[in-house]
């Protein structure tokens, strides 16, 4: 009983506080200068939403996306004085249990015409049905669980390949490019991490030596490391996010399993500098990430320069995808689709070049152009390694 009280109170209170804080910062920085609008091409006060983690353990990924979206909105507002669009932020902390309230909040705000996000798969499963019911279009720049597109949500779109492509690509990279034969597969039991790890397991077939599942928030992985050593695995695949991935990698290296002996391969959710922070530079070295995202420096046009100028850091995982997703919505609003209904139709028929790819969707909301890339940690930096050919 005591521990239940201990659990529930701070969690609930922290949630309240975090949401409050997320909202304040968002409001103060994102509001475009009102009054610039002089014309008639769109009603005043329109906005698009960003839905994802801005605080919490996986916040880096959300912040990358938010900056991409913010850049798109800023550029739009600078170009189109007659149609100013604001950015509403919904900070979910990446937690599915926060998603219901925030999604409802987004749906109730009639000025929100479309949403970039939700960023993660777990929260998408909760929020997307609410968006679908309200006819609010949601373009995710990062949620890669394949089944999300199979739910019949008319409002679901994503601008990157799903894990049905990433899983096989990861498996073929591990067994082919790296030449590993005994792969130990770990997941974090999340919608995304477990979903992806299961696809990798299926594709590895006999090359998988053992499974394990860890918990979100777990910090001591000594039992997992002992088991990895016992199985004689020559590679570990981790399906999950960077906080746990980094600590697992560190503890493997700390236990004397070098990257030559046991390669560490993880996914787009772990591909963040937070991984290097958690693992430490020495233990992170040589880690491979797969990601259905384009290396940010390969984005078209002046995106990389503009982003770097605006936020003082180079664009990171999903920034370019977030920028593309936001631009689809902004193009629609500029085109006169100023109701949710019109905007949804506009997105369905969209076919334009974005900075990452030609942006067009099939009837499930999946993108038509898909690529998976491998990335590597070199000298403490995550750098693009190669595109993994579709198998």
């Amino acid at each position, binding site marked *: 009983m*005591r*521990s239940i*009280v*201990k*659990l529930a*109170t*701070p969690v609930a*209170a*922290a949630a309240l*506080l975090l949401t409050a*804080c997320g909202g304040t910062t968002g409001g103060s920085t994102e509001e475009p200068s009102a009054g610039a609008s002089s014309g008639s091409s769109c009603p005043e006060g329109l906005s698009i939403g960003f839905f994802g983690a801005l*605080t*919490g*353990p996986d*916040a*880096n990924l959300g912040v990358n996306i938010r900056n991409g979206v913010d850049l798109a909105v800023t550029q739009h507002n600078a170009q189109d004085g007659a149609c100013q669009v604001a950015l509403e932020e919904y900070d979910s902390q990446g937690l599915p249990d926060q998603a219901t309230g925030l999604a409802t909040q987004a749906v109730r705000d009639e000025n929100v015409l479309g949403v970039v996000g939700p960023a993660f798969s777990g929260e998408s499963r909760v929020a997307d049905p609410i968006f679908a019911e309200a006819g609010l279009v949601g373009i995710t720049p990062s949620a890669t669980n394949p089944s999300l597109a199979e739910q019949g949500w008319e409002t679901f779109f994503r601008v990157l390949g799903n894990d049905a492509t990433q899983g096989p690509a990861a498996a073929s990279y591990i067994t082919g490019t790296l030449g590993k034969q005994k792969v130990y597969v*770990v997941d974090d*039991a999340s919608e995304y991490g*477990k979903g992806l790890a*299961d696809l990798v*397991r299926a594709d590895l077939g006999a090359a998988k030596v*053992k*499974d*394990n*599942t*860890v*918990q979100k*928030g*777990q*910090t*001591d*992985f*000594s*039992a*997992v*490391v*002992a*088991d990895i*050593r*016992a*199985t004689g695995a020559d590679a570990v695949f981790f399906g999950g996010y960077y*906080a746990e991935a*980094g*600590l697992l990698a*560190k*503890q493997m290296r*700390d*236990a*004397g399993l070098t990257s030559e002996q046991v390669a560490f391969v993880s996914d787009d959710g772990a591909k963040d500098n*937070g991984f290097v*922070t*958690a693992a*430490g*530079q*020495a233990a992170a070295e040589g880690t491979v990430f797969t990601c259905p995202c384009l290396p940010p420096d390969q984005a078209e046009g002046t995106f990389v320069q503009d982003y770097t100028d605006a936020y003082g850091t180079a664009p990171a995982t999903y920034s370019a995808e977030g920028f593309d997703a936001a631009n689809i919505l902004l193009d629609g609003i500029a085109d006169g689709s100023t109701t949710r209904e019109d905007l949804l139709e506009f997105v369905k028929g969209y076919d334009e070049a974005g900075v990452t790819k030609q942006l067009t969707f099939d009837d499930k909301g999946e993108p038509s152009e898909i690529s998976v890339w491998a990335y590597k940690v070199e000298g403490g930096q995550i750098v693009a390694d190669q595109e993994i050919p579709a198998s």
Partner: protein
Amino acid sequence: MPGTSPPSPLEPNRVVPLSTFLNLTFTGLVVGAIYGLFALGYTLVYGVLRLINFAHSEVFMWGSFAAVWMMTLLNARAGSGGPAAVLYLLLALLAAMAVSGAVALLVERVAYRRLREKKSPPLVALISAIGASFMLSEIMGLRDRIAGWLNLDGVLGDYVRPARENTQFVNPLPNATLLDVGGFQVRSTQLIVLVAALAMMIALEQFVRRSRLGRGVRAVSQDAEAAALMGVDQKRVVQLTFLLGGLMAGAAALLYLMHIGVTRYNVGFILGIKAFTAAVLGGIGNIRGALLGGLVLGLAENYGSQLFGSAWKDVVSFLLLVVVLLFRPTGLLGESLGKARA
């Protein structure tokens, strides 16, 4: 979750090789010793005041940040080694213990003392403790904004950012393999953590048992009124109890960082539950019980992870707690700080 394939006890890989068993035992003891050291704060305060100090988890967290900041201040490099590394670690230990001790005293002063003087019901103190815990954790988690208000953002950059993310502890001591027999490995950091934790606990136990101040702690724990009649200053004893618990939590924080490597504003939450469990398992109020409970919990977690998969480790350890409490409601070694001669 039906229809999935989690690692289950039915998998073929079930026979555990001896080397794995030894690895699990050793790393389990390392983590368990940290739990035990952390658990002392719960046990001491309970022994004297019959009160669960739930803010103790944040005492630990603040100590861990003190150690991280000390390394940043000293500009330590990972694995640099040499006598400087030992000196750096000692300074980090001092910083962690000092900050944890200070935070523990602060909690006692702000969250408990008045309530105790007013003879408030225990539940009020519990709420007060949860509130203190929450405050301390959020102050750390929002430290970047606090620095911003004070216009210290530029000066404190490395110390306050990123406030809600993992913050890395730079361990200047290289990690060497001391022993490697057929897959069973002992690494230097693990051994240092285990030995240091055990040494700290023995030192504390001796202090409570042999020193004059320690006798006061035991006296108040046995019978506060009689102790007061004999001239023991109860206020001092309570402060000392919080201070001792805080110092041990600070030491535990440094050892935790050496073993795990990162900390976060909410790191104390889950660890605090674990340490509290260790205290209850061993017999809350009993110093040796905290050590025994910690070690048993560390081992149970590791064995449970191996048998059922890592996701089940908390289930296994709490099941163990329930079973132990069914047969020994006061924990493995019984409850009393005074009667068990500490």
